[in-house]
């Protein structure tokens, strides 16, 4: 590339915080962009060598291959406990978890709430696409009312299957959280906003003021059984009204 484009003319390069490993994600999935925003935030802050990430169980289980920072793979739902262990013995590092809705808001709810309640100085990146992607499209804690999945084939029935969980609003009420915000990465403008939030959240970690959670409402074309374009439209029409984008808790001045 450098032979063709002179350095002074380069306007964009892939972030060095992403490896060259080919991603396993489905076409049109939001994970790739979400990863890039996290990685670019880390690069912009110049903290690649001071960051330790924790990956979940779910579609992003292999994210440790894609982030060029030291990574640990946690058991299903336990990422915030693992991150607590890391941060407590290495308080000078930047520590983040990257978790899906099943991992963070179903099996890992206790770990999530208690990490937030202790105010662990970590960043939780929460990808909410309302479905279990990796296991093949089962109902998630965040699956919307009436939304079809392989374990709610006639649509989520609130009476028997419970209600979609707004975990970000929930943890925002805890004294331990410092910054809770909800974004998406389905358009360039939204992705940039998400990146700004991620950067802020990482910067806040140095203040030792508590847990930051950045939720990214995302899509799942494969399991929603839509084209990528259709899934983004469906997300805007159905997910955003229930999971509205924007700040939920901002630092008190």
């Amino acid at each position, binding site marked *: 590339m450098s032979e063709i484009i002179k350095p002074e003319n380069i306007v964009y390069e892939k972030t060095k915080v992403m490896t060259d490993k080919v991603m396993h994600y489905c076409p049109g999935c939001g994970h790739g962009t979400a990863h890039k925003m996290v990685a670019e935030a880390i690069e912009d802050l110049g903290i690649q060598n001071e960051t330790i990430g924790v990956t979940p169980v779910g579609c992003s289980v292999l994210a*440790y291959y894609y982030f060029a920072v*030291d990574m*640990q*793979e946690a058991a299903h739902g336990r990422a915030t*406990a693992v991150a607590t*262990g890391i941060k407590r*013995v*290495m308080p000078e590092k930047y520590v983040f978890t990257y978790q899906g809705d099943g991992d963070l808001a179903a099996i890992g709810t206790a*770990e999530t709430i*208690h990490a937030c309640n202790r105010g662990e100085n970590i960043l939780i990146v929460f990808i909410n696409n309302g479905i279990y992607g990796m296991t093949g499209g089962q109902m998630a804690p965040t699956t919307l009312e009436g939304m079809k999945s392989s374990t709610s084939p006639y649509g989520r029935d609130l009476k028997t299957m419970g209600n979609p969980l707004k975990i970000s609003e929930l943890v925002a009420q805890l004294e331990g959280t410092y910054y809770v915000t909800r974004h998406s990465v389905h358009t360039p403008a939204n992705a940039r906003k998400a990146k700004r939030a991620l950067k802020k959240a990482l910067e806040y970690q140095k203040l030792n003021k508590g847990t930051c959670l950045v939720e990214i409402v995302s899509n799942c074309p494969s399991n929603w059984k839509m084209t990528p374009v259709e899934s983004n439209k469906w997300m805007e029409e159905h997910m955003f009204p229930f999971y509205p984008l924007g700040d939920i808790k901002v630092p008190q001045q």
Partner: protein
Amino acid sequence: MKELRLMKGNEALAEASIRAGADAYFGYPITPQSEVIEYLMHVQPEKTTGMVVLQAESEIGAINMIYGAAGCGKKVLTTSSGPGISLMQEALSYIAGAELPCVVANIQRGGPGLGTIQPSQGDYFQSVKGGGHGDYKLITLAPASVQETVDYVKLGFELAFQYRNPVMILTDGIIGQMMEKVELFEQQPRITEQFDWATKGKVPGKDHVIVTSLMLQSEEQEKINLRLQAKYREVENNEVRYQEHYCDEDIDYLLVAFGSCARITQKSMEMAREKGIKIGLIRPQTLYPFPVAIIEKLAAKVKGILTVEMNTGQMIEDVKLAANGQTKVEFYGRCGGMIPSPDEILNAIETKLIGG
């Protein structure tokens, strides 16, 4: 400096962890071991050695904090008892799979289920045969005194780091709760070594470090399993520890017992010897690796072996495997929190072992 103190087992274990230079303790209260975290919270080692002490939201939380901190190459431990140790099995499997060092102590109580808070040795199978999913082993140390509890904290960390494997200290409510004279070892420095395998922030010019137990390619996963097995063979060859009583003499009978139960059995052995019965005792100090060779050797010369346990018969399976049919292997045990008396065991020696 070394120090002589009269201490409760659980408190001595906690003090030993500070002195061993531990970086962190993560735990959750459960009887009969809550004194460990109570002692640490009271002593506040964070102010002296810098050791972190944190009460987690559950045993699941605690052991996953252990995973994270161990993955950073730090010296970390947790303690619990039966029900809590069961909750930790998932993460222990992950820790063994990711080859991380840590020390876990199980101050055993009676089971199954919520069971009882009284002492037991019912978690032998869980500790020695796996407990969690997949082919893995915990190096399992079985102290029989407060002194050994202290010594095994230090030894446990050494073995954990040498083999990058979780170490289980399998003790019980008797040793955890009783006070004994104990010599505490000198304060060890906290480790400063930066391990290649640990997450500590990417080293420029080197690949990023990944701590994981996942390998989706079966060919690679098989290789990992075989590598683990090679490590376990090395452990079996090098780390067997046991204590023997009268086994180099001309004995007709052999007793095998571990932990607190071995101390009672030792008394029964002395009573039997006063009656003229030629009998000895093997006390495994490592339950995994199990002292197979010595039991196999002695099985060839004795008329019978009696295994004494505070459960319904668990270690006896390993004793039988070691004896390999060379002699009869009998069992005597109490369970549910009951502790056998020396007289009961003597009676079992006379009826089951000699008379049987």
